[in-house]
């Protein structure tokens, strides 16, 4: 069939039924906004999970009788390891002062200095996670200057399972919203097509092939889906820029990572999904009126 002619007829259809299409695009925009919101949450949870998974930290608690020489030697050994990025010697009084400062004083200021053993705080380079920290801990825990090594493995495991649960929930929500979008798209486009069933009948009686009849409707559906998805992304971006500081202040600190907008490929995927869902919805809706 002639594509140019289909475009001309699709434009005519959009022009004639603009009020209906405006309503359709509004409904679809809301639906795609919900999908975009879920994708936004999902990508941030995923980023946070990756960030936490890649962050390797460990605390090497020093024994009470470790001399400054032992500590310097241990520090040199740790800093020489390629996986280690930074080693900080935290003396007992500094550890206590920091804790009291972070917990804003109160009843914790009464804690004795013995409750805060001196430690070497080890940060691993990017890409080395809790697994590598575990290996290093095994190697240094036998040294006489070392009392205990904390790799936070259990904490990371709990956080990871929490993140996984969050991702699962977000995926479920995405699926649910996706189904709602399909229903909304299907019904909206079906309504638009139903209003033009007489036009379809006339075309068929004049000898139009199914593809000739279907073409403009599919183009209109594609346009509706694409326009709705684009509008949803723009709205989501606007909302993100407007609320970015607040989101980062609350969620950013909670997950320990910067809140980011949906990445480019996901945005493109959302737009493509909009176009495909619109086209499919139209094609399926037209099908029932083609039997003339």
């Amino acid at each position: 069939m002639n594509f140019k002619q289909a475009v001309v007829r699709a434009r005519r259809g959009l022009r004639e039924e603009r009020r209906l299409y405006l309503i359709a695009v509004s409904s679809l925009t809301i639906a795609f906004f919900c999908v975009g919101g879920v994708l936004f949450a999902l990508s941030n949870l995923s980023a946070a999970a990756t960030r936490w998974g890649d962050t390797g930290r460990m605390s090497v608690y020093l024994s009470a009788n470790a001399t400054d020489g032992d500590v310097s030697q241990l520090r040199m050994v740790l800093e020489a390891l390629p996986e280690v990025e930074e080693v900080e010697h935290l003396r007992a009084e500094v550890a206590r002062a920091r804790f009291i400062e972070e917990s804003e004083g109160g009843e914790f200021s009464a804690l004795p200095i013995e409750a805060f053993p001196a430690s070497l705080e080890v940060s691993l380079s990017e890409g080395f996670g809790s697994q590598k920290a575990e290996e290093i801990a095994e190697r240094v825990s036998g040294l006489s200057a070392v009392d205990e090594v904390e790799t936070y493995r259990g904490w990371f495991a709990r956080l990871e399972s929490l993140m996984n649960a969050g991702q699962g929930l977000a995926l479920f929500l995405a699926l649910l919203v996706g189904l709602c979008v399909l229903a909304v798209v299907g019904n909206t486009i079906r309504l638009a097509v139903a209003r033009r069933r007489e036009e379809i009948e006339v075309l068929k009686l004049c000898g139009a092939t199914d593809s000739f009849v279907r073409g403009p409707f599919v183009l209109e559906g594609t346009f509706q889906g694409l326009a709705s998805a684009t509008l949803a992304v723009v709205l989501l971006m606007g909302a993100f820029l407007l609320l970015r500081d607040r989101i980062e202040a609350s969620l950013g600190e909670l997950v320990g990572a910067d809140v980011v907008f949906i990445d480019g490929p996901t945005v493109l995927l959302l737009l493509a999904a909009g176009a495909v869902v619109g086209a499919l919805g139209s094609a399926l809706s037209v099908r029932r009126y083609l039997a003339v």
Partner: protein
Amino acid sequence: MKRRIAGLRFACPVEFNLVTFLPQWNRLVYGTYMASSSSKSSSKVVRPFAFFRAGARASENASQKPILVFEDVFKYFKDDSPTLRGLDMSIERGEFCFITGPSGAGKSTMLRLIYRAHTVDSGRILFCGRDIARLKESSIPFLRRNLGIVFQDFKVIEHWSVFENVAVALEILDMPRRLVRSRVAEALERVGLAGRGSERTATLSGGEMQRVAVARAIVTEPALILADEPTGNLDPHLALDILTLFEEINETGTTVLFATHDHSLIASRNHRIIGIDDGRIIEARVGLRSWQNEPSGMHAVAG
């Protein structure tokens, strides 16, 4: 005369003249689409016109046969009572024929079988020698391009302009825009709506809407026009106008099947009448006026 079309040679017994709407069956039989141009003598082939299906070729003696033949046609909507019971009839090329009978007799069903909105349950319908019932679904659009169909309820798109309503039949054929404009103008002139192409169809009267529908039916210069109660929604004066319009179209060589149960309309003309009652053809005579003194069931049928 020999004419080379789409790489095939066909014998062409009559010279084309599309401007005056002459032999419709040429295009049907020879599978060509001709363009009218400013110079009548310089008609040129725009594109091959598929004979029911792209690539198919009509038999060379098709032009010698009746345009439409019904052979023992049965159609069932209920298992125990067929709507059409063994219909046998033949329509010659260029005929004007009334199909009449009371409501529910099977007139519309008969027409719907011709444009394949329904399929026969037994028997054959031959259109230009080809069995319509055996056409594949994909060939039905090509069958309909050889038919012009007019309905009681007009079936015009009211929010389109008059031009758009007529042009749609040519757009389906992928005809160049320039040709569409000239052909639509010709068709509108023929139905008495010259210069009114830009008007919105919703603003027209019932009679004018039916004229738009007729223009849409004739603009592709079909071989056969099927009119299903085209005057049913019009007052008697307008009904006669529309009937006259169909007769004018018939004079150019187009076969017309005109289904109506309006006795006064049938009585006003001297065309062949095929009466249907209870799914059977009960009479097939020419001219109701000449029968008025004969013992005939036609008056009762035409009702």
